[in-house]
């Protein structure tokens, strides 16, 4: 058992004994020896923040103004890093009317290029096997009509394909091989597996309770009327080493474990009423899942072996949004949107103790977050 696993187990036993509690920020009892870098989007300030958590604390290294209209809030929403760490990609939700994805160089944060996509492009991921970027067009505010996933060649920043998916696609994470993308269609209550090489949906998994579940999607001409979304999934993780994908059920306040081999729901974790999980992330060994509870104002830490909740500390600000896990699985870094004129906040949690160890304010409505790198 690794030292991390040992610490997690100890923490789990401790916390299960103590019950679930709220945690105030505590000084990191074991301050990091490495530096951890993340990029964070402030959706209502049109800024991206480069942050570093390390031996010297949690600090902002750069604030990058994004968008092109100073008098329009264009809404940077999703962010990701190229697998080689050289570039970061940013989705801008609002345009005239279409949104876009922008490419920047990491470190210098120099703008490289952009591509116009669909309505409200949001979450994205890059295939490490081809370099192609997959961006879901959330189309959050339009009529409930099927939307698409855009495929972008990142060298030229050209949209080379669109994949018809479903209503309000959100969350997009690749498998390690880079040939499958997992995303959810929020208003269709479904998880989709995208064949990233053929630019088409390979499999769909209906997560709801409709009796017509399992019907071919193409036959469901009037299913929008028949199906009122219940699960309202908002996120799908990358597959765990055990071949599981985890889906946030924002509508029914649950987390779904999907067995990829069997393409079925393996387990359902009840987050409790009013918690509404929103974004998820798992540790690299698939041992712990971290979930932001958007309405619950908490961060849930789940032990995936037992399926037990480790802890759900309350966040320091309202509306938790994004979460990433550091490459050494030590920290979960969480964004909090805030409300109105409140700044956004980014919190660092020690995964082993599920305890918040640091926080920093950034621009308003901190949402999208991506882990860049860790270094000595």
């Amino acid at each position: 058992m690794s030292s991390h696993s040992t610490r997690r187990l100890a923490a789990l036993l401790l916390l299960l004994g103590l019950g679930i509690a709220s945690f105030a920020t505590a000084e990191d009892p074991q301050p990091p020896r490495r530096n951890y870098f993340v990029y964070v989007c402030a959706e209502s300030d049109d800024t991206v923040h480069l942050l570093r958590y390390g031996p010297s604390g949690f600090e902002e290294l750069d604030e990058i103004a994004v968008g092109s209209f100073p008098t329009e809030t264009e809404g940077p929403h999703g962010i990701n890093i190229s697998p080689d760490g050289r570039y970061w990609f940013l989705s801008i939700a609002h345009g005239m009317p279409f949104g876009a994805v922008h490419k920047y160089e990491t470190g210098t944060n120099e703008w490289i290029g952009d591509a116009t996509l669909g309505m409200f492009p949001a979450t994205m991921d890059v295939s490490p096997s081809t370099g192609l970027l997959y961006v879901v067009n959330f189309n959050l505010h339009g009529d409930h009509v099927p939307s698409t996933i855009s495929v972008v060649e990142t060298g030229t920043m050209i949209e080379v394909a669109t994949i018809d998916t479903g209503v309000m696609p959100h969350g997009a994470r690749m498998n390690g091989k880079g040939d499958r993308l997992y995303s959810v269609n929020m208003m269709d209550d479904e998880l989709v597996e995208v064949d990233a090489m053929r630019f088409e949906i390979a499999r769909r998994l209906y997560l709801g309770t409709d009796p017509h579940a399992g019907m071919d999607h193409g036959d469901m001409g009037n299913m929008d009327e028949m199906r009122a979304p219940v699960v309202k999934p908002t996120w799908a993780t990358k597959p765990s080493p055990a071949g599981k994908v985890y889906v946030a059920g924002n509508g029914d306040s649950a987390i779904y474990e999907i067995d990829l081999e069997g393409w079925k729901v393996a387990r359902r974790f009840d987050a409790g009423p009013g918690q509404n999980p929103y974004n998820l992330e798992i540790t690299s060994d698939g041992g712990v899942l971290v979930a932001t509870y958007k309405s619950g104002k908490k961060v849930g830490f789940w032990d995936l072996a037992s399926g037990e909740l480790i802890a759900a500390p309350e966040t320091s600000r309202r509306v938790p949004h994004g979460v990433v896990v550091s490459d050494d699985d030590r920290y979960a870094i969480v964004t909090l949107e805030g409300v109105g004129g409140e700044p956004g906040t980014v919190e660092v949690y020690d995964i082993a103790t599920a305890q918040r160890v640091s926080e920093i304010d950034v621009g308003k409505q901190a949402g999208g977050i991506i882990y860049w790198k860790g270094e000595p």
Partner: protein
Amino acid sequence: MVKTICSFAGRRSDRLSLLGALACAGTLFAGTAAAQDPAELVVDPPELMLEVGETAQLAATVRDAAGNTLERGVVFFSRARRFVGVNPAGMVEAHRPGEHTLIAMVPREAGAMDRRAEPAVMVQIPVTVPYPPLASVGIAALPGNLYAGTTMRVTAMATDTSGAERKPDFTWSSSDSSVASVSEHGMLMLKGEGSATISVSAESVSGEAAISVKSNPAVRLEVSASETEVRTGDVVRVTAKALDAGGNEVPDYPLQYAVSTRTPDTLVAPGAAAFVEPDGAFVAERPGLHTVVVSGGSITARETIRANPRNIKKDWEILGRGPVRDRHTSDLWVWEGLDGKDYAITGTWGADGHAYFWDVTDPTSIHLVDTVRVDARTVNDVKVSPDGKFAVIGREGASDRRNGLVVLDVSNPTDGVKIIARYDDQLSGGVHNVFVAESHILALSAGRRYDILNAEDPENPYRVGRFELDTPGHGIHDVWVEDGIAWSSNWMDGVVAVDIGGGGQGGAPNNPVMMGSFKYPNGWNHAGFPYRSQSTGKMLVFAGDESFPFGFDPEGKLPDRAAGWVHIAEWDEDGGEGREVARYQVPEAGSHNLWVEDDILYVGYYNGGLRVVDVSGDLRGDLYQQGREIAFFEPADPDGFKPNAPFVWGPQPFKGNIFFSDWNSGLWAVKLVEPETPRNMGEPN
């Protein structure tokens, strides 16, 4: 050790291959290549020439460094998929003409990954889709009478076999150059009596027109001007006709108009001081004596017009302020309350969802009477019902992402403004702009359409109609209602007029009927203001741009810079379309919201401040150049949200004063006063 090379084979190579892994970075790297690693991708055919609609199958072969064929998947895509498509099996179909590129790539294996986001190998497949051949070339109709010694412009048209209009390079010729010839610029010169055939050709297609040139009976031109002494900016109608020896008008006689100018000695290097358009509309931009020269063949005539300085400049008096220095201020609305007092409401931008209510009864003593806060970051637009009973504010950046609008009881702001309704059904994407027309609210939804809500009971508004364009990629930014016609501003689609009850097209709030539109090339249409000129009776559309081509200071400390101008179109009330006749353009600044009243245009010109412009009479050309600007005011505030950075959002004339909101400093009230020394803006006394 295998050194891999990033290069593409030329498009005319026998086969396209890329040895190595990097296709686009142009870099070299060294590494250990396993025997089964893909090292070469061969696509057959290596390039394609396809007609529109034609298909072709690509075959791909993957080999390792030893030349062994590997069973590996190949990903195909097009860099111009709307012009040429390719499916996952490599089937190609040409859609539109041009030079295009397809890509074939072999993904890297999971085990070979070293965090490089690139395929193992990749090749480009050039695809040429030639334009369809021309089907016809023709010459636009010429006048019925052609006279020796005259000149006119001729135009040619071309259509290809797909039916699309084309604009190829044309070559002109004449069967008899002693009768007529055509210059390379399309000027038809009629040289002598007789018949000839004018030909135009492009590619291998030609067209022709037989012409008959008559002797030229014209002996003189008769010219008149609607006025011979005017002010700069006034439109003078110059009319001319050719007469024969008997004094009869010569029909179809081609005339050209030009102008020579002489400005006062005190006005040095004035540039173009006046212009005359092809229809004889003359406007002086500078004072002086300007001579319109009309020519037709070898005869000419002149008419001299004196242009005096317009002398409309006024100065400012700042009456009062409602400063907002801790956040950006957005739009404003000023109205007379039910209690007889005057009020203004201002929104806030990128902050905490506040709307401020000001008592402006005495503009020299503006004071805040109430503040409303809603769950939003931006309250971009604010409007008050014509009866002064309720206000509507739009929400953007709500914490639950359900934005919508909020209705406020403003029947007695002094005693407090109350929220009486929230409405977000199908408006969750943010209501950037609203308008209240009688008992209906028009609310933009997510920049795509506007919904029309019945607000007879403002506490319970409900949707009765909706309007959305069906053009590709359509967007909308603003809407304004005048006499039962909704005029929306739609970026690339320009200003769109919709009958919602007053347009005579059967429209109603629950049945909006599109009447027509006025669009213009730059696609920056952000605001529109319909206005019937008091001086001419013409229906005009003032269409304001919004653009930020200069970017903005990423540090957020320098003043922002905008671009764009106000386009002025005469609106054809029968045909439902606008014809742009004039502009008001302040160089190095950009227009935003605008208002027209009593033939005066008020523009919030962002970094150009507040601008007031005389738009009386007919309008032609660039009003900024013509001395029509009455005044401008740049509201710098050293303690502003961004110090000393005027950024005027929107104006509203009200009871003889002008109120406006500034993004960085809040609400202002000013009035125009007579200047101590009248003069044209930018001109010497």
